[in-house]
């Protein structure tokens, strides 16, 4: 039997603006990617020194997860292995692959090489929140809401997971977009409305920023 699941929170970071559940919560459209990501980190008053060591793709995904879960998620409700991450993008870790390649001309950088895999980003999010459930990273030409919806619902319906963070985190040079969804089987009264049911239509609305 298919159980209804809910988008109990969402976060979009696009073109210098951070949106939480459809509302713009931070804006800095002048800065380049690197400075923009740092300004988000500082604005939300997060203390996590390892943030500075991440590559830009990880920073973007990690910040989106941070804002997604802030005030909306009680990790204590779940066992670590019951929370998973299903993410996708089009260009994998290409942004860092290029940077790493530049260093290889002299002394190849171990810390950059580490980030030449897109699933290091999912790892960074898991380390931060102690999520130990199923993880996957897909490479798609463009955002595929149907795939994400079906895949994640499957995991929840079969009790592989009780909660899942899913979505799209893409970054290449100065182009970026992160759209993350926290999907749970139940949600608080204020979120239990049709527009928060985890459907393809609702996913796309959030992805295209139609709720804002």
């Amino acid at each position, binding site marked *: 039997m298919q159980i209804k699941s809910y988008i109990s929170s969402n976060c979009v970071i696009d073109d210098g603006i951070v949106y939480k559940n459809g509302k713009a919560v931070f804006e800095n459209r002048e800065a380049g990617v690197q400075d923009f990501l740092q300004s988000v980190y500082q604005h939300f008053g997060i203390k996590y020194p390892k943030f500075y060591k991440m590559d830009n793709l990880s920073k973007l995904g990690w910040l989106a997860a941070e804002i997604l879960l802030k005030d909306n998620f009680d990790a204590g409700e779940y066992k670590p*292995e019951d929370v998973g991450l299903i993410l996708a993008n089009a260009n994998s870790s290409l942004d860092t692959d290029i940077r*790493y*390649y530049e260093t290889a001309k002299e002394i190849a950088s171990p810390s950059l090489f580490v980030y030449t*895999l897109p*699933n*290091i980003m999912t790892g960074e999010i898991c380390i931060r929140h102690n999520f*130990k459930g199923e*993880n*996957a990273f897909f490479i798609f030409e463009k955002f595929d809401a149907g795939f994400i919806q079906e895949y994640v619902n499957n995991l929840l319906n079969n009790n592989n997971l009780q909660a899942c963070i899913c979505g799209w985190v893409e970054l290449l040079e100065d182009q970026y977009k992160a759209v993350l969804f926290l999907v749970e089987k139940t949600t608080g009264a204020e979120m239990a409305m049709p527009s928060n049911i985890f459907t393809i239509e609702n996913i796309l609305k959030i992805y295209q920023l139609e709720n804002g």
Partner: protein
Amino acid sequence: MSTTVFIVGVGAISAIGDNVAGCLASFKKGKAGIGDMVYLDSAYKNKIPVAEVKHTNEQLAALAGMSPKISRTALLSSIAAKEAMDDAGISNMDALRTGFISANTVGGMDKTENFFSEFLSNPGKGKLRNVVNHECGSVTELVADQLGIKNYVSTISTACSSSANAIFLAARMIRHNMLDVVIAGGADAITKFTLNGFNTLMILDSDYCKPFDENRKGLNLGEGAGYVVLVSEKIAKTLPKKAYCTLSGYCNANDAYHQTASSPDGIGSYLAMDGALKKSGLLPSDIDYINLHGTGTQNNDIAEGTAIKRLFDPHYPKMSSTKTFTGHTLGACGGLEAVFSAMAIHHKIIYPNLRLQTPMKELPFVPETVLGENITVRHALSNSFGFGGNCSSLIFSKL
């Protein structure tokens, strides 16, 4: 609604053979594929041993029926995927819902490297055809087009667990009646990019690797491709040949410890193995063989060993790391080792863990050091653990 998932075809190319039969012959002879670098052009030639597929790109292109200008990753992928498809011998592929789920981590990096050196010296130089297939998904699509697979094509990139996850996704899609036949696995070619990268992490052994040895010094990089053909019960019944085995369990978990290091107690590995057992409804004592992730790094082997101890103590199945033959083939290892696990069941053999001299003092068990023949393997567990804490285990079961 769920059907049993059958493995009906296998294909492999690695440093120890151009096909499954070639790989099995090398296992029987105890002949590792590791040696001095011949095909990769690198500053580390004669300094760092690697496990290369013993062909030039031109030779591989001839085997694959593709252009030598295409990435070596795609050539390897094509050769093994075609072998798997031919082996399955499904005559009416066109009438079925077919999928190709292929993993890799380097994509067309080998060609990009060629482009880059010319392009750097002169931004007007460099052949663009070398970079058009750079990305991981492009490699999959080139091969899917060649195989004529249309219904579902996808690429998974989760480091060294990539192709185990591809097989896992294939099984799920068959169980949920979304596809009838899936060719799943992965490929990776050795590139300067990966060699330099692993070298900066200081986890490459300058000698032949010694997984699960007290004096292990690191891994040897390898290359290759491995695919299995998975079908539903309904399709399996229509085939002239008996299936090799079933895929009865699978699980993925995150270690949530460090970007590249496994946690000391191997919690992610433990959760993956335990979850796969639960999925298949088996007990640890039902497993007769573990194909270890067994890279030969200090960190992997103690983490994996500790997790095995926690799950299996005191009754240990036979186990070995086939990376002692093939090197660590990264995005391909889950696919290759799935093929080897299925063949262990089918041919009743257990592969040796080469070069093991001093067992690890922390562990109460020792992997197999000699080839085992005529051994009934009821269930084989295959481990693939990747950077990012991504841990996957698959269980193959005798019919």
